[in-house]
């Protein structure tokens, strides 16, 4: 009945973790999310896992997208997950990872709680659709 709240604005944090400096992918995703009507908070480069956790908690984002191209996902992503759990934020944050992730590692990350891993060549539309369909109901 009321006009408000019909379609909740999806908030995303697009984050670069660790030392890798390749942020083209993150920029492209941030822009695509913005054009899809999401609110995107971009972290900038070279964030430590606890910085990402702090931003995700304070901004209360629906989606946390981590872009990693350094190969350090095996250490960094678990630390982010740990941090989110500490604040009780893991359950209703949709965690997705983008970058070059080997298949074996992909399975491992998903085991840990990553909702999906998007590799090179993924259509932007695919990622946006995934977010729309899987964003957690938080009420």
């Amino acid at each position, binding site marked *: 009945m*009321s006009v408000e709240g019909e379609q909740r604005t999806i908030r995303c944090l697009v984050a670069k973790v660790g030392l890798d400096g390749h942020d083209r992918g993150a920029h492209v995703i941030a822009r695509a999310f*913005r054009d899809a009507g999401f609110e995107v908070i*971009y972290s900038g480069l070279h964030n430590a896992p606890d910085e990402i956790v702090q931003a995700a908690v304070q*901004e*209360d984002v629906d989606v946390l997208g981590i872009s990693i191209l350094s190969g350090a996902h095996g250490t960094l992503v678990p630390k982010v997950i740990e941090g989110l759990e500490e604040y009780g934020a893991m359950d209703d944050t949709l965690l997705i990872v983008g970058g070059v992730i080997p298949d074996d590692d992909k399975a491992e990350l998903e085991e840990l709680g990553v909702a999906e891993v998007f590799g090179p060549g993924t259509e932007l539309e695919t990622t946006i659709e995934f977010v729309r369909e899987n964003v957690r109901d938080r009420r």
Partner: protein
Amino acid sequence: MTEKSAGEVEPGREPPGSTVATAEPEFDVDALVENLLAGEHRALARAITYIEDRTPGYRQLVGELHEHTGDASVVGITGSPGTGKSTLVDKLALEYRDRGETVGVIAVDPASPFTGGAVLGDRIRMGSTVGDMDVFVRSMSARGALGGLAAATADAVRALDAFGKDRIIIETVGAGQNEIDVVRTADTVAVLVQPGAGDDVQMLKAGILEIADCFVVNKADLDGANRTVQELTEMLQLERDVDPIVQTGHHGAEEVEDSRSDTEDNQDEAADNGDGEWRTPVVETVATHGEGVDAVIEAFDDHRNFLADSGALADRARSRYAEEIRTLLREDLGTLLEAEIEDRGGIEALARDVHRRETNPYTVADELLDPIRDCVAENRD
């Protein structure tokens, strides 16, 4: 506790047209308030989300938080894009933390009017205090919320205040009325300018000059900084001479004489001179290096003390609340009337009748309003 919170609904007596005000909360309001007051960051973050989304229940939430507010000092920072607002805010937060105070920041960025999407980038510049949870940074977009951004910002400030933040900073691009309304939520408003912005200074005349309690010339290590400071100072001087009442705010014209006579002596004194007039200071900073941040904080504190001493702090707060009440009532009545309009076949049908000369807009409005009028009259003692 208030006896009747705004959205309380007596069971089985749901009024016609379920408005936001009357809708059942979609979350556990009491638990959230309790957790927020207990200092849980996640609860604070979620409270602000509900406020932004206007999730049913947010009114009760804000209502319950209100009594716990009033202790924070609230500063608004505005200026053109690229003047260094986020960088300054970052350094201010750092300095406050060094002094042992906790900080809340609300950074407002524009949203696309077409998709509603936004990239909120202020956080990138706020690296100094990263890892310190006692600096709570929240990005908000100027989404096309009904009633507007200003209301949502004011409520988010309430949440930060109730949470116990000592200092709250609102940052926004000084681009339009919407943004000006936002910084007005603050007790003290600082306008950021960068050197060589001759045209900017011209632009300031229209609107922003009046709301500035403090000017900050950032990037003061660049050429032309002195000149910008000088231009601003001259402009402020001119403004005072032309219309002293604008500057005196709540004080009457009888004080004009006094303030004029000792203007000379007080040229370099920016703060209150005991003549009841606030002299807008111009402070120079190099925010990237943290230079001048002390002076900015001093200017903020001077202004707040001035407001407190002159009674204007309370005046400002009261006029803000008055405006808030009016806005809420307009919004709620609007929603109620929308429901009435729907009930009578919708606005299209009514407009068609008017077009066919079967009735006229005034009659339609009266017909819609009369039952409400009667109802109000009946319930009044």
